[in-house]
């Protein structure tokens, strides 16, 4: 092994000389402790190395071992249900071997070496295969059938292949070309900084339903799409990411805890094996890969963690799965870049971030997409990416937020104002947006209800009107509004409280199918429409808002999916309630018993007075 010599140590940055012949992004081992590092700068025979482990006690004169390999991940059976650190070391096995605290220089392979998997070939001797072709399958978990694919750069005729129990390092297949015979195992490696190839990019046209009402109904993300959720601390970024990891309609979840809390990873580790996937009824852990590089773990490995995660995700995408990646939080990743850049004494850009911040952010999100995979049989996979952003002070002019907004198509704006009111998810319905609404409209309208997008638009309009009216209320009080306007406020309030508000910790409310969402919102709107009509016919405003049926509307969210008729039956109940109200309400009005309530039919003079102001 070739060696260099350390000349400088400054936190996670080490400089070494005698490094001629190494390449950018090669992995090295630093000192006799064999700390993992990666070359991030070269000039003559000097290399700048970012070290993925704590460098205390390391100094000039110590040795750097070159491996002449880039930072790569191991791909193969055994990924699912694993928890890795930022450079794919299995944290559970590390704990078994070295105890409760992470020590340095641990070398443990990512995929378990002594576990046998049942390999079932799907090609036979004599078949011609090329890169990306499926040669066999492994049932990895009840939810995941792991395709074994021909690694990139290999092509030829299958000269041997057998079914049976194998280790990931055993040869399962031999491929003969004119030049040589290649032995394939179930495992392949891939450099993390290089996107895995695909045959063709496809337009996003299917919704990635998430079970979260504000997301699916108003700001949906497409399969293969990108989304971000910036917000100040405590507004629910992690909760929304966890919710998506739990309930999103994806076949594989890769959750990257990037520079955040240790307890949040523990939460996932404890909860996911217990929770059941609403579609398959199997534990959610059976489709999940976790990457945990918490805030107290070495900062450089945080930089690598997002690449490790997305490469694993691409690998499953290539099998034809719909994969979703959550990264919490991309700001910590950017901060890691900033720290290394500062130590390299690079010229800083905005807020001290390196000038290439925005290029890095966009190339990360560009790895998302719905694609046709390389190889046969033909497979269509999707990789969706959802990143949390933690801007200082919640200030959206932060360079990381801005760089992210330039590439992602969905923006969920988390606001502390809503969080203080305990309106969760605290996603602002006024500032958020999704650019996929039109792309996915055709399919949702066909699959769920033909007016799915229509009611969504109508509800959104009501919410916007509410915001305008509230401006007026703030200045001159609610009494100045006409009953029609006050009804808009009531309708919008019902959408906010009865529909948008969703408690992640309530066993039923935590997830709502698209059908349930559609039914709930239709009910809210039905009440509003009927109320409009009743008001026009002279029913008093106070009688309308005081209707008992509203309590049932408020409780829709707690009805289990299996009791859907309890929600749909409200359609009739609302109709009946209004019929009764209209017959009695109008009589009362005529009897003039409603004197203490100023509402009712607007007098002409009042209308004029308002339009004059």
């Amino acid at each position: 092994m070739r060696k260099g010599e350390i000349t400088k140590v400054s936190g996670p940055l080490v400089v070494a000389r005698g490094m001629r012949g190494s390449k950018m992004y090669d992995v090295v081992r630093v000192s006799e402790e064999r700390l993992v590092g990666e070359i991030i700068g070269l000039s003559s025979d000097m290399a700048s190395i970012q070290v993925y482990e704590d460098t205390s006690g390391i100094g000039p004169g110590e040795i750097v071992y070159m491996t002449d390999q880039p930072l790569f991940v191991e791909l193969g059976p055994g990924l699912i249900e694993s928890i890795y650190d930022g450079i794919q070391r299995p944290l559970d096995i590390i704990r078994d071997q070295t105890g409760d605290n992470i020590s340095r220089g641990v070398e443990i392979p990512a995929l378990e070496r002594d576990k046998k998997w049942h390999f079932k070939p799907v090609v036979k001797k004599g078949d011609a295969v090329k890169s990306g072709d499926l040669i066999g399958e492994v049932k990895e978990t009840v939810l995941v059938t792991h395709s074994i694919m021909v690694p990139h750069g290999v092509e030829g005729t299958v000269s041997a292949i057998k079914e049976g129990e194998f280790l990931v390092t055993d040869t399962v297949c031999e491929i003969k070309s004119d030049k040589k015979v290649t032995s394939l195992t179930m495992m392949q490696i891939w450099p993390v900084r290089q996107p895995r190839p695909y045959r063709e990019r496809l337009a996003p046209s299917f919704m990635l339903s998430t079970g979260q009402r504000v997301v699916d109904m108003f700001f949906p993300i497409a399969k293969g799409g990108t989304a971000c959720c910036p917000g100040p601390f405590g507004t629910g970024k992690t909760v929304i990411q966890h919710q998506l990891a739990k309930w999103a309609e994806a076949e594989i979840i890769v959750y990257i805890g990037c520079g955040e809390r240790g307890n949040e990873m523990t939460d996932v580790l404890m909860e996911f094996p217990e929770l059941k996937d609403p579609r398959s009824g199997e534990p959610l852990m059976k489709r999940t890969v976790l990457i945990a590089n918490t805030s107290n773990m070495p900062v450089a490995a945080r930089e690598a963690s997002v690449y490790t995660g997305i490469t694993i995700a691409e690998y499953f995408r290539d099998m034809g799965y719909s994969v979703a990646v959550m990264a919490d939080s991309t700001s910590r990743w950017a901060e890691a870049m900033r720290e290394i850049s500062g130590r390299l004494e690079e010229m800083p850009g905005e807020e001290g971030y390196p000038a290439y911040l925005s290029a890095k952010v966009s190339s990360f999100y560009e790895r998302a997409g719905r694609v046709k995979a390389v190889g046969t049989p033909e497979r269509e996979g999707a990789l969706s990416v959802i990143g949390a952003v933690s801007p200082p002070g919640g200030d959206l002019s932060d360079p990381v937020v801005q760089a992210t907004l330039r590439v992602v198509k969905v923006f969920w704006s988390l606001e502390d104002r809503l969080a203080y009111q305990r309106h969760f998810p605290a996603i602002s319905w006024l500032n958020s947006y999704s650019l996929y609404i039109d792309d996915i409209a055709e399919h949702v309208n066909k699959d769920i209800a033909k007016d799915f997008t229509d009611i969504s638009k109508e509800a959104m309009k009501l919410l916007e009107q509410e915001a305008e009216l509230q401006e007026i209320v703030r200045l001159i009080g609610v009494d100045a509004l006409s009953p029609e306007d006050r009804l808009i406020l009531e309708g919008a309030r019902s959408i906010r409280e009865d529909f948008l508000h969703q408690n992640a910790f309530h066993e039923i409310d935590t997830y709502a199918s698209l059908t349930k969402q559609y039914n709930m919102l239709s009910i809210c709107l039905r009440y509003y429409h009927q109320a409009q009509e009743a008001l026009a016919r002279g029913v008093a405003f106070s009688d309308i808002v005081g209707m008992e049926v509203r309590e049932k509307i408020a409780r829709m969210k707690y009805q289990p999916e299996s009791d859907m008729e309890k929600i749909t039956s409200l359609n009739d109940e609302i109709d009946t309630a209004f019929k009764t109200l209209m017959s009695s309400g109008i009589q009362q009005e005529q009897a003039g018993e409603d004197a203490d309530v100023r509402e009712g039919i607007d007098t002409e003079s009042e209308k004029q007075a308002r339009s004059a102001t």
Partner: protein
Amino acid sequence: MIKEYSSILDVSGPLLLVEGVAGAKYEELVEIYTDAGEKKRGRVLEVDQDKALVQIFEGSSGIDVQNCRVRFLGRTLHIGVSDDMLGRVFDGLGRPKDGGPDVIPEALLDINGAPINPTARDYPNEFIQTGISSIDGINTLVRGQKLPVFSGSGLPHNRVAAQIVRQSRVIGREEQFAVVFGAMGITFEEANFFIQDFTRSGALERVVLFLNLADDPAIERVSTPRVAFTVAEYLAFEKGLHILVVLSDMTNYAEALREISAARKEIPGRRGYPGYLYTDLASVYERSGRIKEKKGSITLIPILTMPEDDKTHPIPDLTGYITEGQIILSRSLYRKKVSPPVDVQQSLSRLKDKGIGKGKTREDHADLFNQLIACYARGKEAAELSVILGEAALSDLDKIYLKFAQQYEEHYISQGENENRTIEETLDLGWKLLRMVPRSEMKRVRDAYLEKYYDKE
């Protein structure tokens, strides 16, 4: 092998550059002997070939380029720990300050510790009763949580912290908390307040104090929380004690960090604080928690004063991004003589959901909490409206809410400094106040609990 040099090239601020050094290591501990015979300590911040950049804990006064000798100790900063440390007072680097004997160490530990493996963590879910309603009822603290107090200058954060230390217990258990207290840059008077309070309540022999006061060397502060956590980790995970770590004031800590960063001419981040402030704070705060199969735990209450009461200032902001919620003290409540002036709307305990409910506090806790918060928010809105439009413009219902909010502040949030309410008292008080509001407004409480608790009486 210990090496000594007198080849100081440069002194600037708290930093010292030594040249001609062979074999210096990153983070290595250094001793500096001045001409006057004074001994100072430092650590290596960077080594570049034969040059070592050293941070001096006690500051650089008395150091001259010609005559000082610098000795490299060949190890990182360690501290000797022992359970005899309970009841003792140390300086910010862990040297006895109470005139008592040196501690005979049972173990010598690196003050930087090692990160807890996330798979080793156990989720915090045991309710801690602090006896303060605004915390127990609304922002419930659990064992192993990190819950900071965001305060402002002149607000009674020390009293709140002392009350928490005094009253905290896990109901149904006899084990007691031991406290590790790290003071950074607080005044003698403030430190004395805590010592007096611990003495009065008889808690002093369960406390380890690390004092770096306002007139102590500022740079030393950077190590104080690490020293405190090293002892806390030992007591919690080796000795099985439940430890409450109180750190005050993190603002002073961050300022010391800024001073070093400025001396190194690093590119400053927001308000001049270094770009790695988040990572640095996390390396301190994340040392708290629980570990599977270990008996003890570390619960952390860092106190910080927000400059200009600004929550978006980097120190509270980055703290909030690391801790599991925050207790915010409000100046406007304090002016209204509400004490402790906990701003229950902006405060949040993120782990409360796992620490409340049947078998922990009481079945109705979550619903009650949601309803109280909703009613209080509505009351505050009504209060705002009445400022603009006058109380007469409020609807009858809003008038009720307004009244509710006032009563809630006066009777629920406000309580005596020595008033220790049980969780039942806190919950019942919540119901008592809710009864001011019509039953039809109780939208966040399920019927069964309304019947059982609201209709009672």
